[in-house]
């Protein structure tokens, strides 16, 4: 379509007006995040090619429709409906058998058993949990809010997002993020439920916005002009360095197609792992870099960005993934940000600072943007405030009345520390709201998991992605409440926000202590001695010790941890997993390890026996 001069004039005037308004808002510190202009950046879509693609998709759909066994499909749906109806009748019968007091209790406080929400062989739950009248209403409101946010964000530039959904398998898994939200809030009520919803909403808003950016910048969608402003970095590299480049967009490249989606859908990474293993990679390699490489092999990563910042963090697996990346996209300039592992020797910090300076220069040269100290200090001040709120959470959880437990908190902490890093001002409001709810709940001495607070627990080593809500199951089934995870216990020093040289030193120290790196790659003192120190500090009764079967670093310490734990007389439950591959150790097997320990060693009975054994092999 060609616009008339008059119309073009109006459009340009409007764009100018918007630009002036945005600059004024930025000057007053009220700039919108992310910059709305990023969403409006021209897409460069080749509509003719898109038309052909669409015709192809329509052709495939028609073929599928003709080929499909409609009889079998509807028969299966009818069976499911029948089963649902039978369940409704059963639940109604159970309700009629209850005394008025029991019925009132269920109506107001929710159901007590959750295992019945699963059905063998099904991906979805039978229905959502009844959390009591007030909390179910709240849950419903949050469900509406989440769908609303997702639809509104994607509608900011719908065509590229739809194209990507039709091309990338992993995009479809994000449609199920509302189900993931349910899994993480199972059994939660009152203040705990509200805090969980607030935190998970922020993560999904970040994901939705970045999915739109990924789609816009992908070569398949014409590489929007926004592409020139996009700096990609390895998903294992923290995002804080982008604080000094407020006009650019920093995107952790593999976070959306690999890392985060594997927490939403346990089956996502299987095609990646199979592809790279049939390409020749040994099967005992850590599934994180394996999946990243596999995604490149099967063309599951968008072709985009002005440059890429790779890293050696948390371990050398990332180096391997970077090499695959360079081979697949040789036109993408790469900077290797490789910090010293012996970070406890302060004399190595200067080396890391030089590396950061080199990286800043690299980004400046490629994008033409200039490092902005004011913007950097502003973001770091916000990040310092967020760290202060985090420390407050730790203080509360160390008391006899912990308030903020469960997978949403764990995910939020990692996302905020690693990816957001104070960039999004909206996150600050979430911190404030969560803190407010938490302190009020603490004053009231609320139970974070009503009726399920039996054991104080701590998680050590890296958790399984395909069972991100494992701590939720621990609380609901056995009353093991995870107060903190190893991956949350990171750098909490207040970062320098005035002296430029010292600020870079602090940034280096922060990067060297990225999630997992300090513990799993920092040597004996940082993972063994540190564990016993934290167990005492948090007064944990049970240690959930994850064993990523492909992590060589942690495997070397298993015997030492076992011996010392026996000497110290702690309860430690080893949970083997294969990080992103549920076929090696299934969720059910992971639960089995806890069930066995609790029954044989602790001589305990589950709080919710329906959750002791259920089938979720195919569930998302």
């Amino acid at each position, binding site marked *: 379509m060609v616009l008339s001069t008059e119309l073009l004039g109006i459009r340009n005037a409007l764009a100018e007006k918007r630009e002036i308004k945005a600059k004024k808002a930025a000057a007053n510190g009220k700039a919108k995040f992310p910059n709305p202009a990023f969403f409006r950046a021209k897409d460069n879509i080749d509509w003719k090619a898109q038309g052909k693609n669409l015709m192809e998709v329509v052709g*495939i*759909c028609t073929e599928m429709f003709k080929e499909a066994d409609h009889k079998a499909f509807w028969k299966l749906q009818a069976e499911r409906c029948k089963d649902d109806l039978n369940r409704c009748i059963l639940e109604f019968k159970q309700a009629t058998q209850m005394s008025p007091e029991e019925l009132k209790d269920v109506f107001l406080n929710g159901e007590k058993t959750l295992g019945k929400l699963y059905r063998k062989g099904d*991906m979805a*739950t039978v229905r959502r949990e009844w959390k009591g009248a007030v909390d179910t209403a709240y849950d*419903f409101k949050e469900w*509406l809010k989440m769908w609303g946010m997702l639809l509104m964000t994607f509608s900011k530039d719908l065509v590229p997002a739809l194209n990507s959904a039709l091309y990338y398998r992993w995009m*479809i898994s994000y449609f199920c993020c509302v189900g993931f939200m349910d899994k993480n809030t199972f059994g939660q009520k009152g203040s705990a439920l509200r805090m969980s919803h607030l935190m998970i909403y922020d993560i999904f808003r970040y994901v939705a916005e970045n999915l739109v950016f990924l789609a816009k910048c992908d070569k398949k969608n014409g590489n929007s002009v926004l592409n020139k402003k996009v700096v990609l970095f390895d998903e294992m590299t923290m995002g804080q360095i982008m604080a000094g480049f407020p006009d650019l967009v920093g995107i952790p490249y593999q976070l959306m197609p690999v890392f985060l989606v594997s927490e939403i859908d346990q089956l996502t990474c299987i095609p990646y792992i199979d592809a790279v293993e049939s390409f020749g990679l040994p099967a005992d390699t850590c599934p994180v870099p394996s999946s990243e490489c596999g995604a490149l092999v099967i063309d599951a990563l968008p072709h985009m960005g002005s440059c890429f910042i790779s890293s050696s963090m948390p371990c050398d697996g990332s180096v391997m993934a970077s090499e695959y990346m360079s081979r697949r996209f*040789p*036109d993408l300039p790469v900077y290797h940000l490789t910090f010293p592992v012996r970070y406890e020797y302060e004399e190595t910090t200067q080396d890391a600072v030089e590396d950061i300076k080199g990286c800043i220069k690299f980004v400046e040269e490629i994008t033409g943007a200039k490092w902005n100290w004011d913007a950097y200090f502003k973001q770091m001040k916000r990040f310092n405030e967020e760290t202060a709120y985090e420390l407050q959470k730790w203080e509360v959880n160390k008391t006899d009345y912990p308030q903020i437990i469960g997978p949403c908190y764990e995910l939020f902490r990692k996302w905020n520390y690693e990816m957001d890093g104070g960039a999004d001002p909206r996150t600050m409001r979430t911190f404030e709201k969560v803190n407010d709810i938490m302190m009020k709940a603490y004053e009231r001495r609320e139970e974070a998991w009503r009726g399920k607070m039996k054991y104080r627990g701590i998680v050590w080593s890296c958790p399984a992605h395909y069972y991100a809500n494992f701590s939720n199951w621990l609380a609901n089934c056995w009353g093991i409440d995870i107060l903190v995870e190893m991956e949350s216990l990171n750098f909490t020093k207040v970062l320098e926000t005035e002296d430029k040289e010292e600020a870079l030193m602090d940034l280096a120290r922060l990067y060297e202590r990225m999630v997992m790196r300090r513990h799993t790659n920092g040597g004996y003192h940082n993972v063994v001695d540190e564990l016993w120190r934290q167990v005492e500090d948090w007064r944990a009764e049970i240690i959930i010790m994850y064993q990523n079967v492909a992590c060589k670093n942690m495997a070397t310490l298993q015997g030492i941890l076992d011996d010392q734990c026996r000497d110290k007389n702690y309860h430690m439950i080893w949970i083997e997993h294969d990080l992103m591959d549920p076929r090696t150790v299934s969720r059910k097997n992971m639960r089995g390890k806890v069930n066995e320990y609790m029954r044989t060693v602790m001589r305990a009975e589950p709080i919710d026996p329906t959750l002791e054994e259920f089938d979720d092999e195919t569930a998302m």
Partner: protein
Amino acid sequence: MKAKKNIKRTVGALAAAYAGLFCVFYFDLDGKLLYYVVEPFMKRHFDNMERRDPHTVPYEQIDSEYMKK
């Protein structure tokens, strides 16, 4: 009288929409639609798509040729 009727109608429509959405929420109908209809449909679509086969690309192939794939 007419205004009253209109208000009643609006309230009724809103109540029906609320009840409908609550049913979708409570019986996880959004999840069921995604898992039982959208997911298998998209899976077949992705399986039918023509994609680059990395096993046919010789290891020593130069990058510029590789990028064309």
